C-alpha cells in the first residue's frame, strides 16, 4: 500500500520538475525570439539611416 502511494505521489514530483523546466524553457525561447527579431529590425533601420544620410 505504502509503495503504491509512493509511486502515485512520484507523479507530483515529475510534474513539478516538468512545470519548472517548461516554464523556464518557454521564457528563454520567448526572449531569444524577441532578441532575434529586434536585431533584424535594428539592422534594417541602420541600413535606412545610412541611406538617408
Amino acid at each position, binding site marked *: 500500500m505504502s509503495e503504491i502511494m509512493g509511486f502515485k505521489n512520484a507523479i507530483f*514530483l515529475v510534474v*513539478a520538475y516538468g512545470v*519548472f523546466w517548461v*516554464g523556464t524553457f518557454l521564457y*528563454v525561447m520567448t526572449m*531569444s525570439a524577441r532578441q532575434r527579431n*529586434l*536585431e533584424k529590425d535594428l539592422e534594417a533601420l541602420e541600413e535606412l539611416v545610412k541611406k538617408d544620410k
Partner: protein
Amino acid sequence: MKDTTGTILAVVSAVLVATALVLVFLWAPLEMTMKEVQRIFYFHVAVDWVGFLAFFVTLVSSILYLRTAARKWDIVALSSVEIGALFLTLGAMTGSLWARPVWNTWWTWDARLTTVAITWLVYLAYLMLRGAIDDPQRQARFSAVYGIVSFVTVPLTFASVFFLRTIHPALFAASTAAQGRMQFDTGLGSAKMGMTLTFCVIAFTVVYVTLLRMRIKLERTADRVARLQQELVG
C-alpha cells in the same frame, strides 16, 4: 557581435543546474514521511528564493533610478520584476504540486500562501501598470516608486510564518530551547539535505543572473531600435 560572458554564464548555469539535479535525485537521502515527493522542496525553495531576490534587486535599482534618473536602473528594475514574477509563479505551482499529496489540497488560504499570493499580484500589477503609461520618463518614475513600495510584501511574506498561524513549514524557524535561549532550526533532518538545498539556491542564483543579463540586453536592443525609429521619423 559575440556575447562571450553571456555564453559562459549560460554554460555555468546549465552545469550547476545539472549538478543540482544529481544531488536532489541521487545524493540527498529519502525523507521518511513524505518519501519521493519531498524532493520537490529543493527546487521549490530555490525558485522562491530567486523570486524574492529579484524583487530585492528591483528595490535597489528603483532607489538608484530615483537618485540618478539613469535609464539603466529602470531597465534592471523592469527586467528583475519580470524574472521575479516568473519564478514566483513557478514557486507557487511547484508548491501546489507538493501540497496536494502532503496536505491533501492544492491550495489553502494559510498565512504564508496568502502573503505569497499578495506579493505575486502586487508585482503583476507593476508590469500591467507600467504598460499603461505612455510617457517613458513618467513610466520609469512611477515604476521606481511602485518598485520601492511593493517590496513591503517581501519581508511580510517571510515574517508570516513567525507571527501568524500557518501550516507551511518554516525553513529557518526560531524556537526556544530548553534553557530558554533562542535557537535556529533548519527543519532538515540530514546534513546532506541542507547541502543539497544550499547548492540549489546557489545554482538558481546563477540562473537568475544569466536570465537578468539576457533580459537587460533585450531591453537595450529595444531602446536602440526605438531611437533609430525616432531618428528616421524626425
